[in-house]
Structure formats: structure tokens, C-alpha cells
């Protein structure tokens, strides 16, 4: 706090400060609240039947106006993702029952700009490949056995693969032996890991991924951080490639 720049009133980092203190439009705020809640429901962070905070609580938690929170909840209600009841014990409850996961995920993807997608991809790529490289220094035979067990069976479908990949990546993050890195990875996975798991709808992709993950686990067990990073990068490059094609097709 006692820096010269702060005392003289001349911000030391004007760009960074503009990013922090720049105006956020109302429309953008509603979208942000909507997309946070939708992604949380789609990804399962918010569970079926879970009661959401009330409008004023939600507004205060997210630091937005009550009207913004109300608009966002209205959209969720229209899309059938929440149900609101009045009176004692009432509130807004998460409804995953009518949720067509594939359709919802594609709908979410279609709503993203290419710029946003690239932004998410860069952050996802960095943390996941970084975890693979670092984890290689610590993986022993028991750890590798646990990672192999997470891989789905030969005839498992997209759903099983998506949850397996999420658990595999979090397990690899945990093997860095840093709780902070693991929490960052979990945050990234929870917020937009779903997008990078969309390509699991294709059987070819699942087969190619199995081979690569087996190789990746071998590299981790061998303590080869460079190979682990390269294999993880190859996997994510393919996922992002497929994702961008799907994104382009959905936005036509």
C-alpha cells in the first residue's frame, strides 16, 4: 500500500486497473449470472433438487442487483432448469430431470464467442498440461494403478468417458502434491471442463483417447514429465480442434 505510485495517485498498471474497474454493462451481467448458473447445473456442481439462494441472497453473493439476479433466474426457469414454488419451504430448485445433457451442452457452446472459447482453451491447456508435467515427478506404481482404474471399460459411452476424464485430470492435479494447484484445476474443470469433453460423443475420439491416456499414464509412471506434457497437449489439441469445428457448425 505504501508504494510511491499509490501515494502520488498515478496507477502503476493502468491496463490491469482498467480491467478491474472498467464498467460492466447490465446485459453482460445478466448473461454472466445466467451462464454461471447454467454451467453449474450442466456440469453437476449444482445438484438436482438443490435449492438455489433467494433472489436477494444470490444478488448479494454475486455482487449484482436483485433485478439482474431476477432476470437470470427467469431465463433459467424458461429453459426448464429450475422450478420455483411459493410459500413455506418454497424457492427455486434445480431440475436436471428434463435436461438433455448433450443438447444443453451444445446450446451452451453455441452461446460462446470464438474469443471466449479460445480464452478458456488457453487457460485449460496451461493448467492441465502443467499438472501432467509436474505430476510425473511424484507418481509411483500405486498412483499409476489408481489412474489406470479411472479409465472407462471398452464399451462405455460418452457420459462415462466425460466423468472419467474429469476424475483423471483432478487425480493428476492432486499428484502435483499442491492443494492450491488442485483447487485451481477443480475450479477450471467445474466451470468449463464440460466444453472440452464434448468430443466424447464420437466413438473414434474415445478410442484414440484411450490409447493416448494409456501412454500418458505410462509416461507419468516413468517419471517422464516432458512426455506426459506432450501427450496431454496432443490430447487437448485434438479436443480443442473438434470443439472448434462443433462450435463453427452450431453457430452457422
Amino acid at each position, binding site marked *: 500500500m505504501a508504494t510511491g505510485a499509490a501515494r502520488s495517485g498515478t496507477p502503476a498498471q493502468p491496463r490491469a486497473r482498467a480491467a478491474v474497474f472498467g464498467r460492466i454493462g447490465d446485459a453482460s451481467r445478466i448473461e454472466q449470472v445466467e451462464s454461471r448458473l447454467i454451467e453449474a447445473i450442466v456440469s453437476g456442481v449444482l445438484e438436482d433438487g438443490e435449492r438455489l439462494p433467494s433472489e436477494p441472497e444470490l444478488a448479494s453473493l454475486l455482487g449484482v442487483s436483485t433485478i439482474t439476479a431476477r432476470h437470470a433466474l427467469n431465463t433459467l426457469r424458461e429453459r426448464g432448469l429450475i422450478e420455483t414454488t411459493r410459500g413455506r419451504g418454497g424457492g427455486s430448485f434445480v431440475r436436471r430431470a428434463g435436461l438433455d445433457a448433450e443438447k444443453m451442452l451444445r446450446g451452451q457452446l453455441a452461446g460462446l464467442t470464438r474469443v471466449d472459447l479460445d480464452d478458456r482453451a488457453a487457460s485449460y491447456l496451461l493448467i492441465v498440461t502443467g499438472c501432467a508435467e509436474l505430476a510425473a*515427478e511424484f507418481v509411483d506404481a*500405486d498412483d499409476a494403478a489408481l489412474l489406470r482404474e479411472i479409465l472407462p471399460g471398452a464399451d462405455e459411452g460418452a457420459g462415462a468417458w466425460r*466423468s472419467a476424464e474429469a476424475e483423471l485430470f483432478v487425480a493428476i492435479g*492432486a499428484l502435483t*502434491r499442491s492443494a492450491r494447484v488442485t483447487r485451481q484445476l477443480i475450479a477450471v474443470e467445474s466451470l468449463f471442463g464440460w466444453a472440452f469433453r464434448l468430443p466424447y460423443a464420437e466413438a473414434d475420439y474415445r478410442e484414440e483417447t484411450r490409447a493416448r491416456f494409456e501412454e500418458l499414464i505410462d509416461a507419468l509412471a516413468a517419471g517422464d514429465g516432458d512426455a506426459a506434457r506432450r501427450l496431454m497437449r496432443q490430447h487437448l489439441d485434438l479436443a480443442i480442434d473438434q470443439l472448434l469445428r462443433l462450435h463453427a457448425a452450431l453457430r452457422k
Partner: protein
Amino acid sequence: MTTTGHKSEELVACSQEVDRFLGELLVDVRAIGAAARAAFGDSAPTAGRLTSAVEPGVNELMDRRDDLQGCGFVVAPGIFADRELFLAWWQGRPRAFLGEARSVTGEALDYTRQAWYRAPATTGAEQVTGPYVDYVCTDEYVVTVTAPVADDSGRLLGVAGADLLAATVEDWALPLLRTVGGRATLIGTTGRAVVSLDPAVRLGRAVAQSAIRERVVCRVAPMTVAQL
């Protein structure tokens, strides 16, 4: 004791302190296990009955020991009719109740793969695991002490346990290692450095056998106090 000849008294005393600490913690963990076992009487057990059986002991323990990150009882698959997995587990300052562990995609997370569950479940022996980053419950870097719990017929009911933050273990062990001096190092059950006076030792990595000049293996768990 794995090496012959004279041991430094300090090293032996240090290992005895580790044994005392783990021994006391295991007494508490076994008590949680006994409370859980009592909940599985004649009638079909339920998660609610298990939770209320375990909770008073957990509260008493967490009141008495402020060094625990969490504790409780984790059910073996097939014990409850209506669910495979259940954690009667409380964690953190607010003693948040866990119940179910979920992955980032919302599915139930299978804890039976984790070493702290699997080792006592398959060997029947009490276990000290870690430190490791626990992504099932706490998302913290922890050491977990677990004890298997079986019914009269020997069927596994689950695992009772308690978590300590690795940082808590470091705070506890450093003064002990200083009584030994030199490059005294506490090595975990899988041969990895847990706490060390030697800045060149990287925590979490295996300590080379050739680097160990003198060692005493603890009795309660195969942790090692070593001079490098």
C-alpha cells in the same frame, strides 16, 4: 529397527514421540469405528442412523483436538440397501457434514480406489496415508489415519478415520526433528519425505536409501525417522 548397531538416543526418542502421537490418534479413530459398528445392529442400517451414532463422538473429538482437519466413518459398498457410498464425515472449522462426495461432473466419487480406504479395507490393518492431496473430501494436502471396522462375522462395514493437514504435521514434527538435529527427516509409509530439516530434501519425493545414514522405523505405522 532395520539397521543394527547403536542408535542415537535422540532418533529413538523422536520415533517414540511419533508412535505416541499416532497411537493416541488411533485410539480416537477406533472409538469412532466402535460407535459406527454399534449403529449396525439387527435391523437394516440407514445413513441417518449411522450419522447420528457417529456424530457425538466426532463432536467430542473435534472439541478436544483442534489439530484435526476432519474425521468420521466411511461406508463399505453393499452395506446400505439404497446407496453404494456414504461418508459420515465432518470437516473443517464449521464441521461441515460431507455425506456424499461428488466429482466435478456431478457423479458420486468412488472413494474405494483411494489408498486411505483401500489399504485398511483389503489388508484389515490400520493405515497412515500421505501426505497426499485429497480431492474426495477436503481439497487439502493431508495425512489420513484410517482403521477398518468389521462386524462379528468379519464382514467389512467401512473405515473410520481422521485427517490432519500436512502443514499441521510439519508444525508438530519440526521441533521433534530439531532435537535430533543435523538433517533429520521424517519419512512416510511409502518412503517419501514428509518433514525434513534438510532444505535439499524435496518433500513428497522418495528419499534415496543410499542417502540414509541412520534410521528408526516407528512401531505404530511404518514411518521412519532418519538421519541423512
